[in-house]
């Protein structure tokens, strides 16, 4: 019996299709540097970061490391930290893959500028009613938990594809075998190689599509073996974050020293703690003027991996799609601090001490 919820559709023609207006057409393909020599990847010890439970649900038999960058509140600098970290690691010789799980609004590719080499449709399964066989018993609509099937007297049930989670229950419960399945496209996956040879994958959810989680799972299924996965999480603290962070080896929570930032950080931290994921903070736009954040950090004994000061030049470079440590090299040391802290907390050598 097939167990997968959804399949990759056919490989579509490679190309860059960025919205109807092409407002950002300049953000596309930059040429990619030639292959750099790559260093030996993670030692086996990296898999023991969170050994509390066996990871039976993942595809992780390899020696990769999943680093998720999350925040709770939007706009605190997740993507900035994620792309600069990916860039730094790649420059240090690590094999890096960037997985953008913010499928509602993916942005990492605007900075890493991959040349898109493949576009794959992402689909979920939806029921179709074989009308000749249906006896209008209503069994399917009674059992469907998502109200995706509605029975009316004397006619086959109506299907509402936008509400369907593709669980297949209706097929099993139909006594007449009157339900088949079809694929429904919810978005697409784009893959390519960007700056510093970073392999990039991002999901793009169709506008008007509610279900982000299946597409998030699909992005994560693209993870290559034996490399560092930098995973950009969506904002918020609900199911899309859980789907992204679920099998992380380490979570980096990016926050800002404001009441909103702290409030949402505390929720995101409790999600990671509930899932027993080791974590550390990056304090972005740090002004040192917000004692409640420092008190929170102290009370919960959280690790601050690095601090990025408030600097208008960072905002300006970010606005143009620049890599900060490339445009403002004085910030390289901050990302280096971040990596050292990550190595310390995870007990893993990520770049073998080299910069």
């Amino acid at each position, binding site marked *: 019996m097939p167990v997968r919820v959804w399949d990759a559709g056919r490989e579509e023609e490679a190309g860059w299709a960025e919205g109807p207006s092409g407002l950002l057409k300049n953000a596309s393909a930059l040429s990619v540097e030639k292959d750099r020599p790559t260093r030996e990847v993670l030692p086996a010890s990296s898999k023991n970061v969170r050994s509390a439970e066996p990871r039976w649900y993942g595809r992780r038999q390899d020696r990769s490391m999943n680093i998720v960058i999350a925040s709770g509140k939007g*706009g605190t600098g997740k993507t900035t930290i994620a792309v600069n970290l990916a860039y730094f690691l790649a420059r240090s010789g690590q094999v890096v893959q960037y997985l953008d799980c913010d499928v509602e609004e993916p942005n990492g590719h605007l*900075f890493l500028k991959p040349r898109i080499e493949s576009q794959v449709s992402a689909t979920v399964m939806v029921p179709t009613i074989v009308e000749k066989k249906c006896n209008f018993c209503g069994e399917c609509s009674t059992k469907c938990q998502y109200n995706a099937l509605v029975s009316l007297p004397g006619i086959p049930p109506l299907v509402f594809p936008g509400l369907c*989670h593709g669980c297949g229950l209706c097929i099993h419960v139909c006594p007449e075998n009157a339900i088949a399945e079809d694929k429904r496209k919810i978005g697409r996956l784009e893959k390519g190689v960007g700056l510093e040879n970073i392999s990039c994958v991002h999901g793009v959810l169709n506008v008007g599509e509610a279900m982000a989680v299946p597409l998030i799972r699909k992005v994560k299924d693209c993870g290559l073996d034996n490399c560092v996965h930098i995973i950009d999480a969506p904002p918020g603290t609900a199911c899309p974050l859980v789907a992204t962070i679920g099998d992380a080896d380490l979570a980096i929570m990016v926050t800002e020293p404001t009441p909103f930032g702290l409030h949402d950080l505390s929720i995101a931290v409790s999600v990671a703690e509930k899932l027993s994921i080791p974590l550390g903070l990056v304090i972005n736009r740090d002004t040192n003027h917000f004692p409640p954040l420092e008190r929170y950090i102290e009370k919960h004994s959280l690790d601050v991996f690095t601090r990025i000061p408030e600097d208008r030049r960072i905002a300006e470079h970010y606005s143009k*799609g620049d890599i900060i440590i490339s445009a403002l090299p004085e910030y390289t040391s901050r990302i280096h601090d971040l990596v050292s802290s990550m190595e310390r907390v995870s007990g893993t050598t990520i770049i073998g001490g080299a910069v």
Partner: protein
Amino acid sequence: MNNIKEIVVVSGKGGTGKTSVVGALASLLTNRVAADCDVDAANLHMILNPVVIEEKAFIGGKKATIDLSRCTGCGTCREVCRFQAISEGYVVDHRQCEGCGACYFLCPAGVVDFSSSYAGSCYICRDKYSAPLVYAELLPGEENSGKLVAMVRNEARSLAEKSGTPLVIVDGPPGIGCPVISSMTGVHVAVVVTEPTISGVHDLERIIDLAQFFKCKTAVVVNKGDVNPDYCKRIEEYSTTKGCTFLGVIPYEPRITEAQIRATTILDVAPDSPTSEIIRVIHKKLLTILEEL
């Protein structure tokens, strides 16, 4: 009952300043109900400083749990679960479980429990402007945020109906997915707060498409406009070509943080600042849009 107008403030990209704008507008709009639909990271109440009048429990979706003492180990549940949520030892991982009930309905031994539990709270409040505020808090990591958004909006609308208030202003979540769709369906006006950055522009296109998909009247505000005047201009042009009303440009304002810390709006902290000035202009333009509906 159908005279109630709803405005939703959204952004696509997070952190563009939605809540600060909603807070300031809520203080200017005299006869309104405010609703915070960013249920997994609610912040509006931190500006509007409400007194909670009533707390209502939100019951989330159902999750399966297998009674291992009675499980026969037949494997049916693992075969029918499409979310890989059941381990070899027949333990359901609630992170993966989507609550479809396949294991519950198809277990031959009938040993799967399938029930829902408390997943958050919805708060009916009176804010510091003595106006109604509805907000909610989803438990960390819970699902069904779209349903909780619908609950917040229903509560807000029924408050408006009861008190004869003509307007509901909704602080929306970031993104374009389930909770945003739930915040946007059936509203009259969508105000998009964006920022002049490569990400802001990228996300703006998608959120405008979504608003127009739902046939909302769409208006655009650029926040932190001086960070990149070039993008700012392009956003204005783009909004106009998409048929949106361009409401104005708010400059980068460090005192917004001060306002947050003092749990109030920029209008109270710096009433004469250019930011406060432009927010008053935006308020007036919004009133005009509402009159024209």
